């Protein structure tokens, strides 16, 4: 990391720089806004427009492997050809609709499981003595900094036929033959919950640690049983954490490619995997683009609208 400028240094290159830039009509404010905006227009907005455009094209043999939308005739006419056939194809082949539905299901179930495991963990950490809290939180965050791919890989060694779990169960005599766990939907759930559990715990912890202990005592003094106190005090007050944590698990889970590819079986349909195969195996760029556009409309846009609504609620408070 570079050292930040200290006031002791007499060399101030920015004075020269700012004078130069002002001379060509660019103020500091303009530059600060312009640089990230331009970058995002070129590397975020334009690519999405191109995806939309190619989704309306047809596959062709050549480089690039799709037909141009605009064709220029010899007499100077310009012809625009748009094909909706890719989208009709997505609707007619049940593979794609099933993949969408099954992605939603996998993401939803994984989120619920992560919440069920993450909530008691976050609660325990939030109520632990203060000197242990940092250590416990660090233990939750630590796996996140190690490679995601290698952590998913670790589960292959755990779940496969002669893997750690099967060997252990057979050693204890609980089972006689290995259970098939790898290449099933079960393995995909395990992988997603495992990967995104820290994202669930952190926001839950943040909202639970702010919880005022006197509220719980008041509730108990008024005769409420622990379960009642939990349902009518703790749970509603930790709602922001539940929502934030669930979004952080649900959103990446929907488009997941690596986990179903490594842990799932051939029949584990997920939309991220379908897009990948459409592009890398079938080399059909237009259909892959159409899958991406459909994914944007069905998945990403609703999530963004939801987040915006949530931000508005937070700001109003």
């Amino acid at each position, binding site marked *: *990391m570079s050292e*930040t400028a*200290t*006031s002791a240094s007499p060399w101030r290159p920015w*004075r020269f*720089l*700012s004078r130069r830039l002002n001379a060509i009509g660019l103020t*500091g*404010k303009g530059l*600060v806004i312009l*640089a*990230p*905006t331009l*970058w995002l*227009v*070129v*590397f*975020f907005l*334009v*690519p*999405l427009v191109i*995806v939309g455009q190619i989704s309306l094209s047809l596959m062709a043999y050549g480089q690039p492997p799709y037909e141009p939308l605009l064709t220029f005739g010899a007499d100077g006419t310009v012809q625009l050809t748009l094909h909706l056939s890719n989208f009709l194809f997505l609707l007619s082949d049940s593979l794609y609709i099933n993949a969408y539905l099954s992605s939603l299901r996998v993401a939803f179930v994984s989120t619920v499981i992560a919440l069920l*495991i993450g909530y*008691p963990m976050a609660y325990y950490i939030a*109520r632990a003595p203060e000197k242990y809290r*940092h250590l416990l939180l*660090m*233990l939750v*965050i*630590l796996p996140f*900094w*190690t*490679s*995601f*791919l*290698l952590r998913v*890989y*670790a*589960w292959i*060694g755990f779940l496969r036929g*002669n893997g*750690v779990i099967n*060997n252990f169960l057979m050693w204890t005599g609980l089972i006689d033959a290995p259970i098939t766990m790898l290449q099933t939907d079960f393995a995909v759930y395990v992988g997603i919950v495992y990967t995104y559990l820290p994202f669930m715990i952190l926001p839950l912890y943040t909202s639970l640690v702010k919880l005022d*202990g006197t509220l*719980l*005592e008041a509730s108990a003094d008024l005769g409420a049983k622990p379960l009642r*106190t939990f349902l009518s005090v703790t749970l509603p007050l930790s709602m922001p954490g539940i929502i934030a944590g669930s979004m952080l698990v649900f959103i990446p889970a*929907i*488009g*997941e*490619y*690596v986990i179903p590819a*490594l842990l799932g079986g051939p029949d584990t349909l997920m939309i991220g995997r379908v*897009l*990948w195969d459409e*592009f890398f195996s079938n080399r059909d760029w237009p259909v*892959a*683009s159409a899958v991406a556009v459909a994914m944007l409309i069905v998945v*990403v846009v609703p*999530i963004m609208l939801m987040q915006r609504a949530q931000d508005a609620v937070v700001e109003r408070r």
Partner: protein
Amino acid sequence: MMRRGWFLPIVAALGFVFLYAPIVSLVVFSFNENRLVTVWSGFSLRWYTALFSDPQILGAAWLSLQIAFVAASIATVLGTLCAIALVRFKRFRGRTALTGMVSAPLVMPDVITGLSLLLLFVAMEAAFGWPAGRGMLTIILAHSTFCMAYVTVVVRSRLSDLDLSLEEAAQDLGAGPVRVFFDITLPIIAPALVSGWLLGFTLSLDDLVIASFVSGPGSSTLPMVIFSKVRLGVSPDVNALATIIIGIVAVGVVAATLIGRRRPASSS
């Protein structure tokens, strides 16, 4: 304070076992002599030797580190500018658009980001001849873009907590906006820049999907090499690699925590 007896500690303990058991097994079996990763047959360092004599893995690791370093640096500069624009300038044309564009990559599935950037690079090459082919440069551009979104989030929250009176005082004493930024604002938000850079570095090192779309022949990043190895089944040299990465990360995180604790919020 309410205590729930045995339930919470047991669930928390099981949760931590769930988080760490796979990592521990990776480490243990990296020292296993046997090729069958999960059958223990004796202590050995042969997979480490195999790892360090594998030019493909070493080359990919070096490429990934370079990409992550450059991409995290670009993302830190752009993300900081973006955060300043969004926090400090409340009114300008395109503010809503910028807010949307910089937060969208956070919810965008990797497959869409990867596909769209690949199509951009193909179209750009056809139109301007740049970037010629795909490889390190295109991966850096792609990673900078999505890491920038994360840096913006980190720096933005730090900037909006910042006490404006310090900057105003400097301005009253005659400092220009650029000088105020470098002398007052930057030192205060530096910790956020460091964590943003580290986050970007980690995310870039970790990315498989986007890199697979935008890379070209001969420029496979470390995750791409690992993925192609792992797809064919478990391989013990990947365990050795994982152990090294876990070791570096553990030392780094513990060191960062200790340093952070010794100077509690010195700059806020």
